[in-house]
C-alpha cells in the first residue's frame, strides 16, 4: 500500500458529478429528521402561495395592473417563480456560505479535490426546497389555459427558454450574492435584496416600477430578462418602456453574461479568501 509513487489520476471529478454526489448525501442527512422535513416542506409550499394570494387580492379590486390582466400577471408570476424555485433548489446552498466562512468550515471545502462552487451549491441540500415548485407549476398551467393566446412554435420555444434562462440568471445571482459573504461576512442579508428581491419584483409587470427603475432592472441588474422581456413577446404585449424588439430574445445572452460575471467573481473571491481564526 506504500504506493505513493503512483501518480493519482489527474482529472478531478467533474463539477456536476461532484454536485450530484453531494446533493445525494445531504438529502440522506436531511431525511434523518422526517417530521421536521415534512412540516418545513408544507411551510415552503404555503409560503410560495402567499404572493399568489396577494396577486389575487389585488385583482379583486381592479381589472389591470400596469396594463396587465390577471392571467398575464399570473403568467409572469408562474414563470419567474418556477425559475426561482428550481434555482433555489439547485443553488441556495450559497446562503450557508456566511456561516461556513464564520465557523471556518470553508477551509474544509478548499482541501477537497472538487470544485469549491459545486460543494457550496450542494451544501445542506434538503428535499424541502421542492415544496416551492407546486404553486408556480399549477399557476402557470392555469394562466396558460386562461390566456387568449395563439400559440406558435416560436412562442412555445420562447416560453420554455424563459424558464431555462430565468433559472440560469437566478443561479448566477445566487453565486454573485454569495460573494458578498467573502467581502463582509455579516452583511449576508443584503444578498436577500438581490435574490428574493429580484424574484419578488419580477412577479409583477415591470411597468409598475416606472421608467427609470424599469430600465435599471433591465440594464444594471438584468432581472428584466428573467421573465419580463421574453414574456412580452409570448403575451404579444408592446413594451411599455418602448425598448427595441430584439431584447425580447436577449435572455440567453443576459444569462450568459451574468453567469460569466458570477464565475469570475467566484474565482476572485476564492483567491482573496482569508480564512478566519487560528
Amino acid at each position: 500500500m506504500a504506493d505513493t509513487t503512483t501518480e493519482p489520476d489527474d482529472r478531478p471529478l467533474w463539477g456536476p458529478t461532484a454536485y450530484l454526489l453531494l446533493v445525494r448525501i445531504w438529502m440522506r442527512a436531511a431525511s434523518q429528521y422526517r417530521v421536521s422535513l415534512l412540516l418545513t416542506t408544507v411551510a415552503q409550499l404555503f409560503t410560495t402561495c402567499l404572493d399568489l394570494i396577494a396577486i389575487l387580492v389585488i385583482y379583486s379590486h381592479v381589472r389591470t395592473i400596469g396594463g396587465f390582466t390577471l392571467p398575464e400577471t399570473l403568467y409572469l408570476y408562474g414563470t419567474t417563480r418556477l425559475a426561482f424555485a428550481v434555482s433555489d433548489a439547485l443553488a441556495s446552498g450559497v446562503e450557508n456560505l456566511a456561516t461556513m466562512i464564520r465557523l471556518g468550515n470553508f477551509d474544509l471545502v478548499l482541501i477537497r479535490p472538487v470544485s469549491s462552487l459545486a460543494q457550496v451549491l450542494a451544501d445542506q441540500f434538503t428535499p424541502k426546497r421542492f415544496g416551492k415548485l407546486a404553486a408556480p407549476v399549477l399557476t402557470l398551467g392555469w394562466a396558460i389555459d386562461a390566456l387568449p393566446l395563439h400559440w406558435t412554435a416560436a412562442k412555445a420555444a420562447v416560453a420554455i427558454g424563459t424558464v431555462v434562462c430565468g433559472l440560469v440568471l437566478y443561479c448566477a445571482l445566487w453565486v454573485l450574492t454569495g460573494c458578498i459573504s467573502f467581502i463582509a461576512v455579516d452583511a449576508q442579508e443584503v444578498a436577500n435584496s438581490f435574490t428574493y428581491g429580484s424574484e419578488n419584483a419580477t412577479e409583477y409587470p415591470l411597468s409598475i416600477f416606472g421608467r427609470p427603475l424599469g430600465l435599471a432592472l433591465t440594464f444594471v441588474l438584468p432581472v428584466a430578462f428573467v421573465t419580463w422581456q421574453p414574456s412580452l413577446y409570448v403575451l404579444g404585449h408592446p413594451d411599455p418602456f418602448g425598448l427595441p424588439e430584439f431584447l425580447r430574445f436577449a435572455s440567453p445572452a443576459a444569462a450568459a453574461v451574468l453567469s460569466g460575471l458570477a464565475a469570475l467573481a467566484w474565482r476572485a473571491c476564492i483567491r482573496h479568501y482569508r480564512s478566519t481564526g487560528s
Partner: protein
Amino acid sequence: MTTTSTTDPIILAEGLTKAFGSSPGRFRRRRTTDGGFTAVDGIDLRIAPGELVGYIGPNGAGKSTTIKMLTGILTPTSGLLRVAGFEPQRDRVRLARRIGVVFGQRTTLWWDLPLKDSFTLLQRLYRIPPDRFGENLAYYTAALDLGEFLDRPVRQLSLGQRMRGDITAALLHDPAVVYLDEPTIGLDVVSKHAVREFLSDLNQRTGTTILLTTHDIADIERLCSRVVAIDHGRVTYDGSIDDLRADRDLETVVRELYLGRSLVDTTE
C-alpha cells in the same frame, strides 16, 4: 510544472510571506480591524519526502497560516511555494488529491450520517479505485479499531472515535503529504497513545511525509525527528530533536517556545 525526483524536497518554501490587511488585493483596500499585519514573514522550509516534522510555536505565531498556504486555502502574499511539485493555491484541486489534512478542532465528516457513508463519499470525490479503497478501509479499520462504530452517525461518536475517523478520512486516498493540526487535542491518554503509534507506523511503513502542529510535548518527543519552530511569523529553530535535546531537556525548550521566546541564542 517542475518535475519531482526523489532528491527534491516535497515541500519547498522560499521567503514565504502572508500579510493580512495590507496586501494589494482589491478587497483589502479598506482598513480592517486587524489592520495590516504579517502572519508569516519570509519563511524558508525544505522538507524531504518521508520526513516527520513537528511544526511548533506559540499561538498566533503563524503555524495555521503556514499550513493554510501549504494546502492552498490561502494565497501567499509573496515568496515561492511548492508542494509535491505544485503551486498550492493555483493547483489546489490537483494538489488536494496528494495531500491529507486533519484539523483537530473540526471534523470533515458528515455529522448526521454513519461514519462509513463519509468514507464512501470520499472514495467518489477523490476517485479512489475501488480495490484500493477496499484495501485501505480494511487496513485503517483494523489499525485504528473503527469496526464497532463504522455504522454509527458521526454526531454520536466520542471525540477519540471521531478523530480516528477523521484521520482515516484524510488517508484513504494515499496522500504523499499529511498535515495534522493538533491531532491529539482533547483526547484521553489511551487515544493519544493510539494516534501517536499509528502516525509513527504510517510514516515508517509508507514513507508518507507528515507535518504536525501540536501543543503536546509528548507528541513531538515520540514522533518527530525534526522540529521547526516559528514565532512572529519567522523560523526560530530548524533542526533535529536530538540537537535540541543535547543542550537542555526538551520540556524546557518547548515551554520557552510557547512563551514566545526565541530559541536562537540558547541553541548556539
